[in-house]
């Protein structure tokens, strides 16, 4: 989730945080008793689910893999929901206000091709080899070395990111509701620790599905009412043109996705279409959606290979629809939000929206839209959707951490031959440990907010090189153990090196992102692309000089050595290829519609 967060959220918060911590700014929303009841009911429900599912999390397979009993729908909704955090919702709505519909790239080309590729092409290998994690797959394919590098980096970054999210969310709750930071951190983390430690992955997945319903129930009304007020899409565009002509909105192309991507300087994001297609659409998106265990874990819990393939395909439809509740409210904010004196409201960067200024930041556009339209009860539902988004994101992090810690670090390095029940106990404690470390990270960021930028950058170092190594391992039988290890290590180091180079000398951006006009987002995309290329090249070169595994050793983990099980014939409406084609056509149609 965090790997795909817009820069506006995490980059903005650290600078604003000290001011927010020190001053009691008036909150955006005032909750009624009904709103509070709606939020309280949600907390009761998640704890109830945790206690109810405790009895179904007795074995390691049940605790870490939800018994591999999830239907395609549950796995699919959970898969997409684990990524649908509240920071993401608010951040991308803010980006839409700032940059226009360009922000929808992160939902369409930045997600759909990768999700379909995972479901149709990669899932059979993950599923057939019965791995419990992505580092587990690396162990089967490349051996212990690559697996350990991946497991440690994933476990470390997962809990750190969880803490960063926790802090960022607490700041959001303070801004929106005026809630005390310590209250937000402690209450939400205790609830997450309780239901994940009790019910394991099953509990996390159940709550993610619940959160998914809440997000749509709480947020869908905002764009509907916004469109009614703006006079529909046509009315919105007419008002936008009028506001731009009057000079009250910065000029730009807010409603086209590809028109302004011909050159880095033609759009406010400072991005070129090659960066969007190859950097975002391949290196970042495929890295995140196909190798980040946080999301892949949900699909591994499916009850059959067909469900495992179908889950990401189902998820892709909902992912395509998310811009309706995220991007559209951000865009509508450009024409419907007004100050109390009747003039058009101007949102500003986070660092300018300090208490006392009377200004609101881009990231506040979604809460502002909620406050504008949602009556008591509905507002509570919208706020609950934001809280649920945060909690399920954190639950996703700690459940993935717990599995990787237990299976890929504790079991191979500390205690190889314990009983199954022992690993369940370790998993429960790992969950609690994950939450404690997350809280510690949240307070660390609170005292030194600049750390947040570094943690976010750290996360990005590992994902794309991992993609290069996993792809080659799956589809090239010649890739060797040494090739995988060195590919992963040098790919990661190259990503760190490029980041440090630009940090030390900002002029280096022209070389990393291929243009002096490139901005931060373009740098992330090209850095990811270079690190995938380096990881693949190193893997290929080292593999050609080392001894490969035999075909028998690669059975179940590599294309060409694996006999995939025959699937029972099903009616066309249950066939994953049919729905993949529909999703692909819809994806292309949306891009043409908003070209």
């Amino acid at each position, binding site marked *: 989730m965090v790997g795909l967060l817009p820069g506006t959220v995490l980059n903005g918060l650290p600078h604003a945080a000290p001011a927010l911590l020190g001053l009691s700014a008036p909150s955006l929303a005032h909750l009624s008793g009904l709103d509070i009841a709606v939020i309280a009911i949600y907390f009761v429900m998640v704890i109830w689910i945790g206690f109810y599912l405790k009895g179904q999390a007795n074995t390691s397979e049940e605790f870490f893999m939800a018994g591999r009993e999830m239907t395609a729908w549950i796995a699919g909704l959970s898969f997409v929901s684990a990524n649908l955090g509240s920071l993401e919702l608010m951040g991308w709505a803010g980006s839409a206000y700032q940059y226009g519909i360009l922000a929808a790239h992160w939902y369409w080309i930045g997600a759909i091709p990768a999700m379909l590729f995972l479901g149709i092409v990669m899932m059979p290998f993950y599923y057939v080899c019965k791995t419990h994690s992505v580092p587990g797959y690396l162990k089967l394919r490349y051996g212990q070395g690559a697996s350990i590098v991946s497991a440690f980096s994933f476990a470390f970054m997962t809990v750190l990111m969880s803490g960063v999210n926790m802090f960022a969310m607490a700041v959001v709750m303070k801004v929106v509701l005026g809630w005390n930071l310590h209250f937000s951190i402690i209450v939400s983390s205790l609830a997450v620790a309780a239901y994940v430690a009790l019910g394991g992955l099953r509990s996390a997945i159940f709550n993610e599905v619940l959160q998914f319903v809440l997000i749509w129930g709480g947020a869908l009304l905002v764009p509907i*009412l916004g469109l009614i007020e703006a006079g529909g899409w046509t009315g919105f565009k007419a008002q936008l043109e009028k506001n731009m002509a009057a000079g009250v909105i910065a000029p730009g192309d807010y409603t086209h996705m590809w028109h302004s991507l011909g050159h880095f300087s033609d759009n406010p994001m400072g991005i070129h279409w090659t960066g969007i297609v190859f950097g975002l659409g391949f290196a970042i998106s495929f890295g995140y959606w196909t190798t980040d265990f946080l999301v892949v874990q949900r699909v591994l819990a499916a009850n059959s290979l067909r469900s495992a393939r179908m889950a990401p395909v189902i998820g892709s439809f909902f992912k395509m629809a998310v811009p309706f509740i995220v991007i559209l409210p951000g865009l509508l904010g450009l024409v419907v939000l007004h100050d109390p004196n009747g003039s058009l409201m101007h949102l500003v960067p986070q660092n300018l929206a300090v208490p006392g200024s009377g200004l609101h930041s881009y990231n506040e556009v979604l809460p502002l839209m909620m406050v504008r339209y949602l009556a008591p009860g509905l507002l509570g539902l919208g706020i609950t959707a934001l809280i649920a988004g945060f909690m399920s994101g954190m639950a996703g992090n700690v459940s993935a951490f717990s599995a990787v810690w237990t299976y890929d670090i504790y079991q191979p390095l500390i205690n190889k031959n314990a009983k199954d029940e022992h690993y369940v106990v370790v998993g429960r404690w790992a969950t609690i440990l994950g939450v404690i470390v997350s809280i510690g990270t949240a307070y660390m960021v609170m005292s030194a907010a600049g750390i947040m930028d570094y943690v976010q950058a750290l996360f990005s170092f590992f994902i794309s090189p991992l993609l290069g190594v996993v792809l080659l391992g799956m589809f090239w039988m010649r890739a060797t153990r040494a090739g995988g290890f060195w590919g992963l290590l040098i790919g990661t180091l190259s990503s760190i090196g490029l980041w440090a180079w630009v940090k030390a000398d900002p002029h280096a951006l022209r070389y990393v992102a291929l243009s002096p006009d490139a901005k931060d987002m373009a740098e992330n995309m090209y850095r990811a692309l270079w690190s995938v290329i380096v990881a693949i090249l190193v893997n290929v070169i080292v593999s050609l000089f080392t001894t490969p595994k035999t075909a028998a050793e690669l059975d179940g983990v590599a294309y060409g050595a694996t006999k995939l099980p025959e699937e029972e014939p099903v009616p066309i409406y249950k066939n994953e290829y049919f729905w993949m084609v529909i999703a692909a056509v819809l994806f292309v149609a949306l891009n043409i519609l908003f070209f």
Partner: protein
Amino acid sequence: MHSGHISIWFFNGVLLTIYGALIAAYGIFELITHQHANVVLWNLHAPVWWGGIMLAAGLFYCFKFWPGRNS
């Protein structure tokens, strides 16, 4: 997952039913008393129909996935 256990869809149904009932009840209260919240487009009475939709969906899921019904 369904047999002998409560389905996730039942939990969803319970939550939607409670929320739908609360929100629709508030909307009806607004309609009857003519005391509307200070929000834009209050005249569309969104709590009534949105709460009603949630209530109907919640009841459907509660009924369809009632524990033991599918076992």
